[in-house]
């Protein structure tokens, strides 16, 4: 259940890119508030600005205009070093392409991030257990299926014990069955660990599982709906 205090707050945020001779507006005057513990799905077609929105919230990109406050950090004013600290302690990323380090085993991929934060509460072994891959902890990414790789990526994001999890198309590379399993896992972790989840996807079928659905088009929020009765991911199909 979400608490009332906003953990993420965006006011009039714009982000423009220079691509060759053209200027592209990825975010156009976006304002948004997210309260702690929410499980949000951000929907939008390709090029709508979903990933940019995540990157701005996660401190990977800085906005061209507007203010972004995440967990009390006004991140558009943070210097590079402060942004690193911010990401280290506030944000867990889950990517579409998993982005595991190929030369590290499953457990080591998780421990790598754990070494960074030295969080005593969550242990790599526990996290790998939490995603159901304890028996495959010594396998390298190339020895794991796509779904398994994504579960390791989720455990890696989780082990930092950060309040916010940003997921960029987490099921985009997975088959239907595996996608459902991952969504169930994310939902379970949201409830179990009380993390705020922002999941970006172009797949509208996923919307019913979220507490809240934000729709993006051409860099603007076109819709922001609360879902009082989110359904179990098991019941989703596409």
């Amino acid at each position, binding site marked *: 259940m979400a608490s009332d205090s906003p953990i993420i707050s965006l006011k009039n945020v714009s982000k423009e890119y220079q691509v060759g001779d053209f200027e592209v507006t990825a975010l156009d005057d976006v304002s948004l508030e997210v309260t702690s513990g929410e499980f949000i799905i951000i929907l939008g077609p390709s090029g709508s600005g979903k990933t940019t929105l995540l*990157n701005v919230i996660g401190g990977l990109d800085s906005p061209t205009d507007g203010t972004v406050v995440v967990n009390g950090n006004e991140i558009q004013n943070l210097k590079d070093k402060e942004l690193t600290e911010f990401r280290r302690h506030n944000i867990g990323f889950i990517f579409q392409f998993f*982005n595991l380090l190929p030369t590290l085993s499953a457990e080591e991929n998780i421990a790598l991030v754990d*070494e960074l934060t030295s969080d005593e509460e969550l242990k790599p072994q526990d996290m790998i257990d939490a995603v159901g891959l304890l028996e495959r902890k010594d396998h390298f990414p190339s020895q794991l299926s796509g779904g398994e790789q994504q579960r390791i990526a989720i455990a890696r994001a989780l082990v930092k014990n950060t309040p916010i999890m940003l997921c960029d198309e987490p099921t985009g590379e997975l088959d239907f069955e595996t996608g459902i399993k991952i969504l169930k896992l994310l939902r379970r972790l949201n409830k179990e660990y009380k993390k705020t989840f922002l999941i970006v996807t172009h797949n509208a079928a996923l919307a019913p599982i979220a507490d809240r659905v934000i729709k993006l088009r051409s860099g603007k929020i076109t819709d922001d709906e609360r879902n009082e009765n989110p359904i179990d991911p098991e019941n989703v199909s596409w």
Partner: protein
Amino acid sequence: MSILQKKVVRELLTHKAQVLAVIVMIALGVGMYIASYDSYLNLRASYDQTHVTYNFADVWLQVRNVDQDLLQKVKDEPDVETVETRLVLDLYGKVTDTSTFVARIVGVPENSQPNFNKLFFTQGEYNLDADSVLVENHFANYYDLHVGDSVRLTADGNYKTYKIAGTVISPEYIWNVRNKQEVLSSPENFGVFYLAQDELQRLAGAANLVDEIMLSTSLADHKDQVEALRQRLVSLIPTENYVDSYTKATQPANELLSLDLDGFSELAFFFPMLFLTITGFTISIMMTRMISQQSRQIGVLKANGFSKGSIMRHYLTYGIFIAIVGSAGGVVLGLLLANTITTLYTGMLSIPVTITNIHPSTYVVGVLLAIFACLFSTFLPARSAANINPADSLRNASKSSRGSRLAIDRFVPFVKHLPSTLKIAIRNIDRNKKRSFFTILGVMFSMVLVLASWGMIDAVQNFTDRMFNDIYKEDLTVTFKQNITEAEVSDLKALEGVNSLERGLIMPVNLEVKDQAYSTILIALPQDTYMHGFFDANNNVLPFTNDSLYLGQGLKTELGLSVGDTLKMSLASEGIDLPVAVSFDSKISNFVNEPIGSMVYVTYDRFQNILKENNLPELENTIYLKVDKDKRADIRARLGSWDDVLQVQDSKVLQDLINSYMTFFFAFVGVMVGFGAIMAFGLLFNTMTVSILERSREFATLRTLGFSNGVINMILTIENMLLTIVAIPFGLWLGHLATVGAFTAYNSDLFQFEVVIFPRTYIIVSVVIIVTAFVSQLPAMRSIARIDLARMIKDRTS
């Protein structure tokens, strides 16, 4: 071990062939530095200790008729410590009936070592009487003389036979030179002998004896102050009695050894630096490409909160690892080679003391150089890794992926009409300009590695070719004890096998110009001589006329001279040279480009005119001969038996002598060529492997689409060979520059090396590089052929 350190280890293992290649390159660079620089220090120490052990004098003064008064003045001069005198005289000698040689005879005590320049016995012992002699080692070795053998010496033609009591090495004659200008005194024609002082006095009779005053000074450690002392001492000697003087630094053998050692020290630094620089470049390419491949991984790390510093440290660790492992190998290599090089060198030059110390500072510097090279070459890639924008790298945005038309298609329209394999290969070059640029640089530097050292061998080869084919064209140079008579010229002409001859003169001369003095040799030759070639600095032929006064190019820089400067030349021959004393002024008409020595050349007629103007009789003491090949030895033997012939110098013997002096140089440079070739292979292997393997996914896709391995290999080969061919001219140019750099140290007033790389070398190196580049890509191609397509396509790791 932290997880990131595990990542380093596993990635090094993943790229083990490339990593091993750069580790070997670092090991060779460091090993070469340690071996050559430690050898240099050991050689320097061996010289210095030889000087200490055998009490090498600090100053020599050659004076006619030293009297007690002058000796006392020398002893009383401030800073003079110990003084000793001796007689020195150049006479004639014979070992067999058919060869006369110049015998430098040095007077020594009968039964005890002299105070200065003590002798090291390789055979026999110190026990001289009126009938025995000690023979310097170069001569003894050349004629295979042993204790109990005999030599004949004479001042006036009446030879006396002396029994050899010992063969010796002297610190004064470690390099067998008669004087500074005769850099190449063949032991066939010049030897040093030690007679009891009284016996020398008796043998010389009325000959013009030179007393040599040798002394030590408290200023010995300060070269400039010793030189100042020499000048003060010279001012004490009446001009008419003064012959010559030098300090320890300018003593002919020591100066030549120092020049040789300085050249060696420059090479000892130049090659390792060159090799380490290029290795650094190789590491830089490897790291740059690795970081480019891992940009998504870096994005993930940064997204998860890894700082710039931790990412930079992570990638610098690769450099540190390579530096540590490579320099450890280098240290072992250095340890093994340093003593061998020192011992070979001192053995070759017969230096009596060989010091083979280990200098920890050399090892420390070697390791630091490796660390510096590795860290410096890793620093920029690591910094670029630290500065990667995580959002860009995760988005997989590349600045080059704007989708514009390739330049090659815009500027070379026919590309689109080419067969597809060729088209893809050419477009690949344009598509990733950075990768193409790195490949070109890799090939260029590979060529530098080989050419820099091979070029030195060519330059030395050119040195002797020019010397004996273009400049000194005679086969035999016959020097007479006295003025040559017309009968002797007729007899020479009549010798079977003599094709042509020229008459000339060779004499010592002292030059005075711009308040500087320089002792050299004056050579008078017929106008338009065909026994000697004259070339200016640009190798243009210079006409030799009665207005010509040519000086060796080395003097131009040594004395700061220009064409038109007026020289004062003084002939003041001593001992066995023709007795003449005359001074005259003349303007320099040009400088001649000659590889050895800095001689003065005038025409024979002009010289005779000068003598006539000074009321002196005509002089000629040298005949240059061109002879039939098969009669050469016979003519030499017959001339050697003529009483009036002082020496017969065979240009072939001189050439062999140069080659024997160059043995160590060739061996050293040969090792450099070998090291350079191994490193060039390592560099090319890395360049090609990186270029191919970073496109594994792309090639996997092509194969999935149905392209055969053969077609893919063809595309890669065309691409790599095109880049190699583009790189070759630049590599040749850069290699030439590197050879010039390597030779700078060797040029002096005595040696002029012209950097010439033969066309055949350019061709061989180019072909070898093309073949090596081709072979270097094969392992990576094989690896592409073995790609697990399913896995590569499934693989979604960073």
